């Protein structure tokens, strides 16, 4: 018998005596009402992770991003990123080794989650392949205020599970040494978030 059939058989025989009637699942966690300004909550929660947050108008994105990066930093842009950044090169399929010597990467995002201060990238146009926002040590992520949703259920509701996703809440961190949180291990050690109003 194949392992597959044997495991499925074991599952079925384990459940022969079980009461298999469905258990009711509460859904009150969906559609919770959030009072106050969602974007302000998002800013507060992102800053809590020791990421920086800058708000600007659509026309100011290029200047804002440039000011966040130290002069002389090599910068790569996700293909399809909707703003131009002076001196930045659009990713042309750089390898991980090549990206390791790039200073910073600039991408967009699909969703911002206010309650948890989370950015979700789905790695389509403007967001780049997954390794693009991973290997360089600085990540500048630009999100529109209109992309900010209230909470995790709201985000799950709009995200497409067929897309690969990276949920980012602050810079890379670890609590593995005495459970003290330290920012900066393998992912970008600096995260700048730019919110376009």
């Amino acid at each position, binding site marked *: 018998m194949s392992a597959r059939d044997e495991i499925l058989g074991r599952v079925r025989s384990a459940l022969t005596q079980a009461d298999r009637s469905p258990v009711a699942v509460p859904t009150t966690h969906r559609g919770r009402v959030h009072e106050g300004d969602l974007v302000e909550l998002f800013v507060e929660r992102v800053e809590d992770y020791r990421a920086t947050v800058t708000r600007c108008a659509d026309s100011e994105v290029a200047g804002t991003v440039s000011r966040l990066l130290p002069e002389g930093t090599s910068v790569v842009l996700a293909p399809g990123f909707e703003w131009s950044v002076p001196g930045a090169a659009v990713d042309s399929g750089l390898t991980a080794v090549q990206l390791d010597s790039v200073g910073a990467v600039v991408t967009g995002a699909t969703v911002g989650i206010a309650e948890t201060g989370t950015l979700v990238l789905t790695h389509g146009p403007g967001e780049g392949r997954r390794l693009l926002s991973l290997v360089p040590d600085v990540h500048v992520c630009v999100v529109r205020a209109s992309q900010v949703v209230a909470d995790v259920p709201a985000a799950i*509701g709009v995200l497409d599970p067929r897309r690969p996703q990276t949920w980012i809440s602050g810079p890379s961190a670890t609590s593995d040494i005495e459970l003290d949180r330290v920012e900066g291990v393998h992912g970008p050690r600096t995260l700048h978030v730019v919110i376009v109003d």
Partner: protein
Amino acid sequence: MTGTFVGMPAFPTAARAALADSQLRSNLAHATSTIRARRLAVVGELDGWEELRLAGAAIKDNTLLHLDEHLLALEASLTARGAVVHWARDADEACRIVAGIAKDHGADEVVKVKSMATQEIGLNEALAAEGIAAWETDLAELIVQLGDDLPSHILVPAIHRNRAEIRQIFLDKMAAVGRPAPADLTDEPARLAEAARLHLREKFLRARVAVSGANFAVAETGSLVVVESEGNGRMCLTLPDVLVSVVGIEKVVPTWADLDVFLQLLPRSSTGERMNPYTSIWSGVTPGDGPQEVHVVLLDHGRTRALADEVGRQALRCIRCSACLNVCPVYERTGGHAYGSVYPGPIGAILNPLLRGVGTDDQVDSLPYASSLCGACFEACPVRIDIPAVLVDLRAQVVDAHRGGVPRPEAAVMRSASWVLGTARRLGAAERASGLVGRVAGRLARRSSSSGRPLMSRLPGPGAGWSDARDLPAPPAESFRAWWKRTEGGHR
């Protein structure tokens, strides 16, 4: 190492050694109190936490009760998304599958995302036997691996090590397996994390094959979810050409929407954060992005045995957050090694016997007793596993498994108790005898309780071990029934 560490003594023996280690106790007390405070803060600020727990438990229960259907759905959606699905009855089969994939690609090393399932099946040791080096890339796992140590916590396997010990391990061990630690390394956590970043970066950039587990597997969409902090997970899930994920069959959730419960429950319960720094979600192969060959190994290894246990089945709801460890008064004092398994603490005390069965291994049989049944674990559990209830049921199973043959001391005691309590006449005789003991003990006792009652601090004979750490009040000189008779119910 399959399930429990080879050669570990039963819990009471191992716990005694752990309790004598004051460094360990101080490291644990510091770490668990830190994480308890963080968890309480982020759980408290979320409205409707109890409803979320109920939802998490209900989704898992509904899934487990139709696990065969959800596994078939998961297999179908993974296959449709370009992943190759394998099934493994046990640890050996799972390890053979992973080693086979690595060898097919001529790999002599793999990079690993922290994964309880691969720990449980002893994958690193199995790969080493095939000449394949498995590099742990989670910081705590790296500390354990470099220190040739055993994990002692589900979330933070090196919780028993403090910063000074970690610095020494890095200085002593990194050079032999790759980039050495900087000579001027201090014990600042930021410097230690930096040393790990530099040491592992060359391994990430070089690796062709990665091995991961998964926190959740969505049947409807074929999506696997890995929740992490450091970015080592993202590195492993993104850079190599080939990705193998070993996933316990209980990790399946039916729908994408179900994640809106678990992605709230897990980070708040686990690291005490509103959200963990990184969560990666992938559904099979994405052309042009990440590994182009994706394997998923669905692992039984005792899970169907646990599924058949009417009371213990709920343990399969576990999302490996480790909140129960951090609140457990026993774990906080003994640490994880005393449990002799990759699953320590309250959840380990039920999961190990459920996965492996009772009655064959004294170490496993000792685990359901490694608890004071205080219930803190149940209160903390984000999927409401009633751990105390399962512990009590497993204790009964352990006793049942040892019926026949030479009776254990507690079985002999229970049998005589049952004989004595069986008739009023025998009980009366026993009370007169114990009253005599009480009068003698009252005269000999050197200590008394706060209410003035004499205490027996050392029992004779087979009771000596039990009384090592406990004081027993001396039996009263007169029993309640004798008093009632003498005073006509207190009227005389």
